[in-house]
Each structure stands twice: as structure tokens, then as C-alpha cells.
């Protein structure tokens, strides 16, 4: 082999913001990613962020403060929070039994937890309505004791619990699986009874993932449409959810108004997400201490 006399010049990085790698295809894959992301996510979101301001600041405030809109936002966020909170104990119960006990049908039950994900929302919507309508199997039972389920906030609440449940269970399961058994055993040797162990050892360890599961369920519930819209009854100011209001405003060609509600939903969701992240961080840090 003949020697090439030219020494290799120090190679200057062509792109100072990326660490050199021998693997090929960075430019191509990043290009595809950015182009697709830009067209599918960024451009539409820019439209959502800009359109409402056609109304002017006053117009936006006015649109959101209108009694019907304010009521819908209150209903959506309030019921979503309540449903997510109920999902917490239900989720802990299911995650606990599915990870800690062996019983016939456990794997099937485990798989079925995902059903609310897998079932298209419109299907869940009409099925829940059929069950909780005054003529339905559970709706008629409730009607006998004077409780109105479908076509009332309670109906919306049930639908939101249904779609939120898997989020909490699936957030908790891996933590319960990995929870150091020795910690529990240590607590036992120190004289803690079952209840004390559950409350003082297990629950604090579950804290961060419980918060994250509940917040995921909440975020999903706020935007939920298909499984709620059939059971809600959609009475303006009473059982009208925020996503439905967007649809109605669009049907009236009130694009700016629809965008204002949409933007408000995104903003409130994002704000609560930030707050929840903070809480989660706090819990995780306390868990480590």
C-alpha cells in the first residue's frame, strides 16, 4: 500500500449542533421528521393559536365568558377532574389485584383493562347510553331510586370514568411490579401491620405514578368527545361539553369562536399539565429523600 503524503486535516464539524456519528441518515431522517411534523402538527397549531385573535382581545374574552361557553368549560374540566379522582382508587384496586394475586382469569382481566382504549369512542358512547338510558338495564335501576344517569352530568361522569380507567391502572402496574419486596418485608419485621404497610410504605411509593396516571386520565377526559356526546343529552348550559361547543360553533361558521374555545382548552390542559408535573416532581423527590 502506498502512503498518501497528505496528512488528514483536522475535520471541522459541519453541523455544530449535532454530535458526529458514523451512522448514516441523520440529515434524511431529521428532514423527513421536521417536514412532516411541520405540516401535520406545527402549521395547524399555528392556525389555532392565531385565529381567535381576529376577534381582538376583548372579543376572545367575551367569547369565552359567554355563559354557554363558560358553563361548557366548567362542566368539561370539573367532571374530568372528578372522574380522574374516582379513577385513582379504582385504578389502585385493579393494579393491586392484577400484580399481587394469582387467580384464574387474571391475564384475561389484565388484557381487558385496555378495552376502553381499544373500543372506538362512538361505540362506547352508544353502548353506555343504551345501558344508562332510563330504559336501559342500569339506567332503569337508578331511575327507580330517582337518579337520572344518562342525559345528565352523572352520565357524562360515568363515560369519563370508563375512558380514564386504563391510564391509571397502566401507570401503576409497573411500579407495583418493581416495588422492592424487601422494603415491605422490612416494614413487617419492624412491626407494621398490613394497613400501616399499605398507607405508609406502598402508597407513598405509588405517589408519582398515581399522579401521572390520574393526570393522563384527566387530560384524556377533558378532550373526550365520542363516548360522551351520546350520553350527555347536550342541553346548552347544563350538559353541553366544551368539545361539542366547538363543533356547534363550526357548524355556525364561527371559526374564530371555535378556535377561541379550542385554544382555551389547550391552554388550560397545558397549564394543569405543568402544575401536575410540578406535583409529581415534588412527590418523586420526597420519595427519594
Amino acid at each position, binding site marked *: *500500500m502506498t502512503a498518501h503524503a497528505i496528512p488528514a486535516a483536522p475535520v471541522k464539524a459541519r453541523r455544530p449542533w449535532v454530535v458526529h456519528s458514523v451512522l448514516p441518515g441523520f440529515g434524511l431522517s431529521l428532514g423527513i421528521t421536521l417536514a412532516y411534523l411541520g405540516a401535520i402538527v406545527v402549521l395547524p397549531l399555528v392556525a389555532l393559536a392565531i385565529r381567535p385573535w381576529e376577534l381582538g382581545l376583548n372579543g376572545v374574552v367575551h367569547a369565552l365568558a359567554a355563559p354557554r361557553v363558560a358553563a361548557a368549560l366548567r362542566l368539561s374540566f370539573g367532571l374530568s377532574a372528578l372522574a380522574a379522582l374516582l379513577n385513582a382508587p379504582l385504578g389502585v384496586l385493579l393494579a393491586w389485584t392484577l400484580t399481587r394475586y394469582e387467580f384464574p382469569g387474571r391475564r384475561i382481566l389484565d388484557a381487558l383493562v385496555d378495552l376502553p382504549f381499544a373500543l372506538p369512542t362512538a361505540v362506547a358512547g352508544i353502548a353506555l347510553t343504551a345501558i344508562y338510558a332510563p330504559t336501559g338495564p342500569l339506567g332503569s335501576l337508578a331511575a327507580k331510586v330517582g337518579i337520572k344517569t344518562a342525559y345528565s352530568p352523572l352520565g357524562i361522569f360515568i363515560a369519563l370514568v370508563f375512558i380514564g380507567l386504563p391510564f391509571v391502572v397502566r401507570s401503576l402496574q409497573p411500579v407495583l411490579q418493581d416495588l422492592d419486596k424487601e422494603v415491605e418485608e422490612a416494614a413487617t419485621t419492624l412491626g407494621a401491620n398490613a394497613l400501616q404497610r399499605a398507607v405508609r410504605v406502598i402508597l407513598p411509593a405509588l405517589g408519582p405514578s398515581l399522579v401521572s396516571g390520574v393526570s393522563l386520565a384527566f387530560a384524556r377526559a377533558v378532550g373526550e368527545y365520542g363516548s360522551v356526546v351520546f350520553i350527555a343529552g347536550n342541553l346548552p348550559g347544563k350538559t353541553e361539553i366544551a368539545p361539542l361547543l366547538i363543533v356547534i360553533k363550526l357548524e355556525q361558521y364561527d371559526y374564530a369562536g371555535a378556535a377561541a374555545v379550542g385554544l382555551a382548552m389547550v391552554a388550560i390542559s397545558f397549564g394543569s399539565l405543568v402544575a401536575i408535573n410540578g406535583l409529581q416532581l415534588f412527590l418523586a423527590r420526597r420519595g427519594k429523600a
Partner: protein
Amino acid sequence: MPENSLPTADTDAQKRGKSPLSLEISGISKSFGRFPALNDVSLHARDKEFLALLGPSGSGKTTLLRVLAGLERPDAGEVRFAGEDFLSLPVRSRKVGMVFQHYALFRHMTVAQNIAFGLTVRPRRERPSKSETADRVADLLKLVQLEDLGARFPAQLSGGQRQRVALARALAIEPKMLLLDEPFGALDAQVRRELRRWLRELHDRAGVTTVFVTHDQEEALDLADRVAILKDGRLIQLGTPNEVYEKPADPFVYDFLGAACRLPGVIEGGRLTVADWESKAPADAPQGRVDVFFRPDEVMFAPLDGAGLAGEVKAVVQRGPDARIECLIEGRLFELEARGPGVPSGVAPGLSLRIKPLRPKIYAAA
């Protein structure tokens, strides 16, 4: 190198000394962000040499190996192999056989498919036929003593077996140079020792220049023809195992290559004074304040009226004919080793005696 065979190399030390330079590394620097991983490293290896890159973690040894493989690009410097500019060659054209620290076996391929991979990705004209490939794989499986495991998947192998598959896969492409990154790092002590001897034999038979990275000084001294010791991205010392062990370039190397005891001393007028012990200073020793190093098993125990450092025995752990003796010297506790006849008679806690380092190494005080 003839096709399809692993020639037997002459391992005669004299011949190796005469063999031509094969790998020349000069002035290699590389930093990751602000962290300098390699700082102006230059070294060379002769054809068919077995070179160890030894250093603690963060010393830059793995980065240097990856530069040789083409997996990292240095900021400055030059690498030549057999006179050829190596840095301008892309990874795939370098024909280096790299054995990764965690082997990087293709988990979805069988052992045989793993070994054959390098042959099957050659351009169509150079690609061996199916039967040639199969023969070659069979040869290599035999070489690494895994004849019956060709159909297994990596997940079904033990750590030592995976290591050998990785080596066979690297050898399959008839590499110009073999690069091994902590080849025994993930194995337990027993397997390590067995594989070590086997690897050296394999190197001698394959006759390929080999560079291997390790943080285990015993491994490096045991296996390599020469050892390059790195620290903080710099080459500290390069030499045969005996050279680096006998003449460590600095206190770091001395400390890194084995257990070390250190005491401060002074050299004036050709005399070395350490505490109450005075002796003739070696001719090449520095003047003034110095640090004196010695190995805990290279000491002679003498009665209190003899020559050496005054010490008091604090504890003794007897192991058959040998003993570990904890001694207080100059207010510091040292764990010394004595073998068989070297164990002072009647040694017990409380005994005062003198300790004479047999081969102290003297460095200017830090």
C-alpha cells in the same frame, strides 16, 4: 495474508522486534463538548504486535480504540496503517475486526449468521459463495470452540461464549487489525483467566496486529507485548509489561500497576532519608523533597537494631506460610505482605521491628 486461512505467525520476540511498523498514531486529540477525551496522543504498533491500552475509566482508552475503528472522528491528528491514511477511510472500508465491550451481537441472528454477516454484506463481486461462506463459518466456529452452537441465538449463550462469537465474527472479515474493547469486562474472574490465555494463543495463530483496551493492569501485563498507559486523555507511558512494571514513569503509573505504599522523604548529597531510615540514593533520583514508593510485598523485616523504617505491628493475619502484617510506620498504617521465610519470627501485635523496602521507587514530591 492468504485468503481463507489464518496463517501461523512467528511469535519469536526478536522477529517481532524487526517487523515493520504497522499502526502509527500521531497527535490524536478529541474532545466531547468541553471534555477532552484524548490530548495529543501518539504511539505506534509493530506488525502482529499485541498492544494493550490501559487506564482508569475516563482515561480516553476506549475513545482511542473507537478512533482506530472509525467510530469516532478525532479533532486533530493522524492515523496510518501500513502507511495508508486511515482517517480518510470510512468505517466499512477499514477492515478492522472490532469486538465491542458488550459484544454487540446481532440479537435476531443465529451465531452462524452473526459470523457470516461480514461476508454476506460484501459487494456482489467479492462475496464468497454460499458454500464458501458456510465453510468459513464452520472453520471459525471450530477456532473459537463453538462447533455445535452455530444454530443458537446470542441470548441462548453464556457470556464467555458470546465473547468468542464476537471474536469469530470480527475474524471472519480477515481483518487487518483486531480491536478489542474491554474483552473480558463482563465476565467473571475464572472465565476471564481461561479466555485470556486462549486469546493470546489465537492472536499468535492469526497473526494480526491487535489493540485491546482494559482497565485491569494484571490483564494488560499478562497478555500484551507492549502496554500503553493512559490517564486523562494523555499517553503516560508506553513499554513492555516488564518495562512499565519495573520503571513506572510516574507515581500514577506505579500506583495503577499494583498495590503501593508511599512515604515522604528527602534526598541531600546522595543520601535518601525517610523518617529515621537513611540510605544511599539511586544515581538517577531527583534532589530535595521526594515521595518514596514501594510494593507491600517487596519489603524485608528486620529486628529493631537492623536497617529500615521503624514500625509497630498492629495486626497479623496468617494465611498458611504467608502473612499480612499491618504496620504503623511514621504514624500511618500500612498493610504489608510477607511470604514464607520472609515472615518475621514471633510476629504479633505490639512487636516493634524495622521494615526495609527492597526496591523503592523515588519521584520528586508532588
